[in-house]
């Protein structure tokens, strides 16, 4: 990385942003490249080594599980699905949140998204990979994984799960890569002739002669718009199909028509919270407070709470509808007042009431408050997934006692390894790519534009202009409309 630092300083004058005398972009570039050009400090190494150790421990635990069977992870014939499937849903869910939020903000032309999208998209890519990897410990026999390709069963939702997750992963990768093209060109130019072979291979070849001319920008924007439009239904399909792995079984508590939207909203909710956590971590670590302000957190907080309200509505709709009939409702009793009640009520208080209070109270409605609330949302939504999985899985269908699941060091270590892999992979990834999309940041312009809050009318006007070609005059600010009305009176 020393090489990068030296060449960066030597060649910086050749870069357009610096030549233009645009101090805003100079600052943006400095901050965006701070993860790459500065040598990692002791804290960075300490965190990476710690996280790496947890990941290695997870791999060791998985090898132990392969050797000793699923029983070593707490599984038994009365608890056949448990923590790993909850991990799969949680990790893929947060990925979905990152991708969809970035896609929606991009499509609606929200300029304040600019400092967030790269982090959100990287998080989406990393978490879908980790979530997908959790299928292997869940399977127990990873050697059978290939059977889903060699002997596909089109009747099984698991086959369609595989298809949906694979398609979504490819879409997320393309969605992550396209905005990187200008950045790759920038880094390639910045490194100049002193590039190492891998740098030449990586940056130069992936930038495809990007010069930033109008034709190239137009092609990139068009491609990004299509992928943004595509990734939203894809993400919805992934979580709907994932929910059908439960809902298409004849097990009470899983066979619920509400499951697809229930899973989709949970994914969006936890995904927004995860974006907040990732943004907060990198903001603190690389001192990005100038670009990522309290207002970004407030807006994400509003979005998170709105999704949380929809989610609790669906949770209650599920429990009340099923509970009212009184047929095979043992799982509801177990969830609300039985052995899973502490977990369920933890979700209600920490995952629903806490974020609402944090956003509602002005004093706590800031970056710190919303980050803490987001932390509890992510944790409690994982707990909620366990509550969805375990009570129905342990309910006896004919007669006999309830089954039970107990965590073991194996399942805990593997789950923690997945958690550790998110910051680990992100920290490594951002040693090679900028923290912001420079193209997006340039478009966003001055700090005022990044801070700007669009009214609904402005968003609608922007969408109509961009996609329908109709020009609608929208008021610049909501306050101005109010003022004009008062004057008119």
């Amino acid at each position, binding site marked *: 990385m020393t090489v990068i630092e030296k060449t960066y300083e030597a060649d910086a004058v050749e870069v357009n942003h610096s030549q233009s005398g645009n101090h805003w972009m100079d600052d943006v570039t400095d901050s965006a490249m701070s993860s790459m050009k500065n040598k990692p400090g002791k804290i960075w190494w300490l965190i990476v080594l710690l996280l790496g150790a947890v990941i290695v421990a997870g791999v060791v635990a998985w090898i132990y599980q392969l050797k000793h069977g699923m029983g070593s992870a707490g599984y038994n014939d009365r608890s056949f699905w448990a923590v790993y499937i909850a991990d799969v849903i949680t990790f893929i869910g947060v990925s979905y949140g990152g991708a969809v939020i970035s896609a929606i903000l991009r499509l609606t032309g929200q300029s304040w998204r600019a400092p967030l999208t790269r982090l959100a998209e990287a998080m989406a890519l990393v978490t879908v990979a980790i979530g997908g990897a959790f299928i292997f410990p869940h399977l127990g026999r990873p050697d059978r994984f290939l059977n889903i390709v060699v002997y596909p069963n*089109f*009747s099984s939702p698991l086959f369609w799960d595989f298809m949906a997750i694979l398609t979504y992963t490819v879409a997320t990768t393309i969605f992550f*890569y396209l905005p990187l093209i200008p950045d790759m060109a920038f880094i390639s130019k910045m490194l100049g002739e002193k590039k190492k072979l891998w740098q030449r291979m990586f940056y130069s070849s992936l930038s495809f002669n990007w010069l930033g001319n109008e*034709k190239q920008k137009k092609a990139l924007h068009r*491609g990004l718009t299509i992928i943004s439009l595509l990734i939203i239904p894809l993400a919805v399909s992934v979580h709907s199909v994932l929910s059908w792995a439960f809902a298409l079984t004849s097990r009470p508590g899983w066979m619920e028509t509400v499951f697809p939207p229930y899973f989709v909203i949970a994914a969006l909710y936890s995904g927004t919270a995860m974006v907040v956590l990732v943004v907060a971590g990198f903001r603190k670590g690389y001192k990005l407070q100038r670009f990522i302000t309290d207002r970004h957190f407030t807006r994400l907080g509003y979005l998170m709470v709105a999704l949380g309200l929809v989610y609790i509505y669906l949770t209650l709709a599920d429990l009340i509808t099923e509970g009212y009939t009184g047929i095979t409702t043992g799982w509801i009793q177990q969830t609300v007042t039985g052995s899973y009640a502490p977990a369920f009520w933890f979700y209600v208080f920490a995952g629903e009431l806490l974020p609402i209070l944090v956003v509602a109270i002005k004093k706590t409605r800031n970056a710190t408050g919303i980050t803490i609330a987001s932390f509890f949302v992510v944790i409690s939504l994982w707990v909620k997934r366990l509550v969805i999985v375990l009570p129905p899985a342990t309910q006896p269908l004919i007669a006999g006692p309830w089954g039970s699941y107990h965590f073991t060091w194996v399942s805990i270590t593997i789950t923690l390894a997945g958690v550790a892999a998110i910051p680990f992979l992100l920290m490594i990834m951002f040693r090679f790519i900028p923290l912001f999309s420079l193209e997006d940041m340039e478009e966003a312009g001055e700090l005022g534009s990044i801070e700007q809050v669009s009214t609904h009318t402005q968003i609608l006007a922007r969408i109509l202009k961009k996609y329908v070609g109709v020009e609608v005059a929208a008021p610049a600010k909501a306050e101005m409309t109010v003022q004009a009305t008062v004057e008119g009176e």
Partner: protein
Amino acid sequence: MKNFLIKSVLTVFIISGLFSLMSYTSAKAASVTSGDSTLNVALKSPKSSTLLLTSTFSSTQLASTAKSSSDYVALYFVQTTEFSSRGWMQIGSASLSASTGEENMTSTVSYDPTWTGRETFKVELLQNQNDAGVVLNSATTVFNVLKDPSGFPSSEINYQRPMNQVGKWLVRGLLTLVALVWILMFGVLGFVVNRVSKNGKVALND
């Protein structure tokens, strides 16, 4: 680059072909059919909805290693559909009625159908002890199941199982949709990379 692509596609085809060949060989080895056999399906009584499935096997064509009818077992199946795939679901098993040496050996099971319409039944004769899983003989037949046996003649009614045909087309539709999404994704990637690269080269040459 072009050669590499062609080689990659050919490799994928060859690997898929090998997998298909392996699965075909193993399926063939599991099923051996020979000789005459019949499977008759009839109502237990004119007013009943229960079916009696009776199979008859020619004993002379069975394996000579078996000494009595208890060495054989007849397994009965009904063809089921789920979403798009078809498969045989076992509905019962029965031992054979006569000892080896007699002309025919028969067996019977009763079955209460859960669907109306044309149902395909199958019987398989297996040897109990040796070569477990090897089918010695089999027969299939189609029976039009009526919900109310005292109602219309079966020939005039053609009940359709709900969504029986939908699954077949739905799978094709879904696979086509997935293929289109993949084409769109890589099409967009290809479009952007091509345009960016082309315009970059032109601008550099200018």
